[in-house]
């Protein structure tokens, strides 16, 4: 995560100390095989600084097993949203070194099993997310470089324990690992392992490294809450190439040759890889648009093509305005955009006028771009699906669609021209990861915002009293992917819609009318005569407050919290004329 300069561990611990409790605070339990106070203090500071306030619980020093095994312990009473398990290789190495090398592999396995049983137990806490720090591979190498080839060596044994942690995480929906060995290497193991602090106060690393370790646990939490960054908005001059294309011309910009030009090439390669993993690239440049596009089309050393840019804005307006426009065109929140600009003036302007945008202090030297940005871990992923791979293309097609829309005089005519086809299918295993992702992430077009856990969604698929469906949409510009989920439940002679959500990518396409048509058909097949539904307001879903009203439902109840209940008599339901053809799902 990006934290402004000057927020070192001392400042963060101070901030954590002063952080007030709040009703909506994240409840984080930190349990560990080391002192936890330094970590927890920094974590609280980072939580406050990043607008995700947390209250914390720590059991007594080194009482992990007692705390976890005792159902009455403070851990369970605390009802944590997140449990963070801090490992300490300093403790593990001594356990391993105390065993004879002939049985050390077995000893490592035993230690791994003990830790796994702790993790399994805490991951059963209802609604919890468990984050465990992997072990840092220790620096002692009795065989020198040959150590990694000796199975009973401590580094080899520790790597094996880490492997077991990752295997468990891969098979446990709510368990995530922090690659602590990576962080320690990045920070520098010589500085990470401050043995004085381990001996004196059982601190598993130098506290200077804690903002990285705790920050990455919070990155995972934010990603799970759907607060991930989705888009990189790029300035062009001195960001994608050296120099100013408007002044220096196509031949004058520095790109591709040795030295500085190669740094820009490397940065573009880095961006392209992020695009392939689903991060949207946008351009936000003060430039003449023709000139700004020229390098993309003509410069032989450009890595990024115009087709890699989902939204291209180059003009002389102020950048905060342009970022608002970019967000609107892509239909994403400003708080999902990271803005990269070499100009301190532009960065400051955006921080002031579009404070939701993430604006890191991009270094002056382009060779520092990638290492600096990697250090921020801006793009944490908690899963990866086929959908992610294609995301940037989806968004680009969307912007093209909007260009098309301008040519039509009526929305209806435009929608007709899109030649939309949609599938409406009952949940299946193949699509569960994407369904789960959409359920976790969708905030705006989400009627009840129930975050069904993945395991529950899987059970829904086989429940005869439930009607869990997903929707995919394509049109003449290409696939939009799996973009809507609706879950109904049999309630005597009615179908109650417990969840209805849709990606904002496909808003205003009359897809909701198509979905309702299909739901009505399903209900009728099961002799259900009424559809019932609820709207539960959140800070973000005002967009759909009138969703059921627009679809012809009758309001039956309004509660003090603003939530509303609706009902639709299917007796005289007329199928909509939404210009969307249903087709069977064909896998590409």
């Amino acid at each position, binding site marked *: 995560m990006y934290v402004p300069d000057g927020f070192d561990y001392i400042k963060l*611990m*101070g901030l954590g100390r*002063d952080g007030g409790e709040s009703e909506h605070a994240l409840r984080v339990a930190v349990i560990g095989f080391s002192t936890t106070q*330094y970590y927890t203090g920094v974590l609280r500071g980072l939580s406050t600084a990043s607008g995700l306030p947390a209250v914390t619980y720590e059991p007594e020093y080194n009482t992990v097993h007692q705390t976890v095994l005792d159902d009455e312990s403070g851990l369970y009473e605390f009802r944590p949203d997140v449990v963070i398990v801090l490992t300490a290789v300093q403790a593990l190495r001594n356990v391993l070194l105390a065993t004879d090398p002939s049985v050390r592999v077995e000893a490592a396995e035993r230690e791994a099993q003990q830790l796994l049983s702790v993790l399994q137990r805490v991951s059963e806490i209802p609604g919890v997310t468990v984050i465990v720090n992997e072990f840092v591979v220790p620096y002692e190498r009795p065989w020198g470089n040959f150590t990694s080839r000796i199975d009973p060596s401590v580094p080899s044994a520790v790597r094996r324990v880490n492997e077991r942690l990752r295997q468990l995480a891969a098979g446990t929906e709510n368990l995530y690992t922090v690659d602590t060995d990576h962080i320690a290497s990045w920070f520098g193991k010589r500085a990470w392992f401050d043995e004085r*602090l381990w001996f004196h*106060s059982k601190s598993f690393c130098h506290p200077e490294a804690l903002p990285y370790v705790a920050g990455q646990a919070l990155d995972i939490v934010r990603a799970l809450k759907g607060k991930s960054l989705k888009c990189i908005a790029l300035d062009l001059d001195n960001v994608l190439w050296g120099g100013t294309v408007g002044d220096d011309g196509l031949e004058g910009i520095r790109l591709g040759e040795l030295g500085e030009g190669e740094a820009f090439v490397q940065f573009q390669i880095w961006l392209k890889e992020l695009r392939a993993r689903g991060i949207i690239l946008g351009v936000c440049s003060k430039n003449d648009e023709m000139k700004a596009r020229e390098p993309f089309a003509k410069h032989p050393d450009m890595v990024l093509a115009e087709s890699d840019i989902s939204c291209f804005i180059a003009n002389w307006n102020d950048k905060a305005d342009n970022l608002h426009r970019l967000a609107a065109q892509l239909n994403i929140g400003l708080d999902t955009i990271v803005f990269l600009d070499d100009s301190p003036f532009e960065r400051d302007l955006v921080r002031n006028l579009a404070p939701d945008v993430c604006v890191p202090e991009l270094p002056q030297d382009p060779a520092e771009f990638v290492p600096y940005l990697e250090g921020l871990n801006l793009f944490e992923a908690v899963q990866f699906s086929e959908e992610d791979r294609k995301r940037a293309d989806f968004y680009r097609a969307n912007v093209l669609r909007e260009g098309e829309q301008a040519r039509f005089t009526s929305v209806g005519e435009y929608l007709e021209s899109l030649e939309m086809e949609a599938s409406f299918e009952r949940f299946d295993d193949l699509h569960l990861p994407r369904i789960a992702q959409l359920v976790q992430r969708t905030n705006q077009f989400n009627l009840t915002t129930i975050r069904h856990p993945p395991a529950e969604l899987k059970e829904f698929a086989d429940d005869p009293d439930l009607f869990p469906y997903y929707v995919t949409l394509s049109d003449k510009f290409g696939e939009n992917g799996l973009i809507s989920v609706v879950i109904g439940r049999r309630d005597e002679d009615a179908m109650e819609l417990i969840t209805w959500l849709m990606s904002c990518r496909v808003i205003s396409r009359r897809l909701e009318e198509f979905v309702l048509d299909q739901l009505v058909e399903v209900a009728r097949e099961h002799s259900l005569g009424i559809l019932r539904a609820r709207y539960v307001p959140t800070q973000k879903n005002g967009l759909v407050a009138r969703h059921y009203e627009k679809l012809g439902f009758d309001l039956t109840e309004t509660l003090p919290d603003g939530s509303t209940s609706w009902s639709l008599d299917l007796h005289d339901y007329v199928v909509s004329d939404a210009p969307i053809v249903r087709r069977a799902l064909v896998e590409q």
Partner: protein
Amino acid sequence: MSSDAIMETLGDVFEEVLGRRVPLRAETTAADVEGWDSVVHVMLILATERKFGIRFESSEIANAADVGEFVSLIEAKTG
């Protein structure tokens, strides 16, 4: 660096760690300063190392009896 100057700078270190200015005298001990617990103690040690560009040995981390002794230790290291 004179012990007065060290004491002055040490005041800044305490402020950085504790978030407030505390009156420091040679005879001040941890018991005299609210919030100076074992965690804060380590933070004070590390912040002092950073501020003065020095490094304490294991034996020195736990042992200074009062601020005066701590100042002498820093004085010896900064030469």
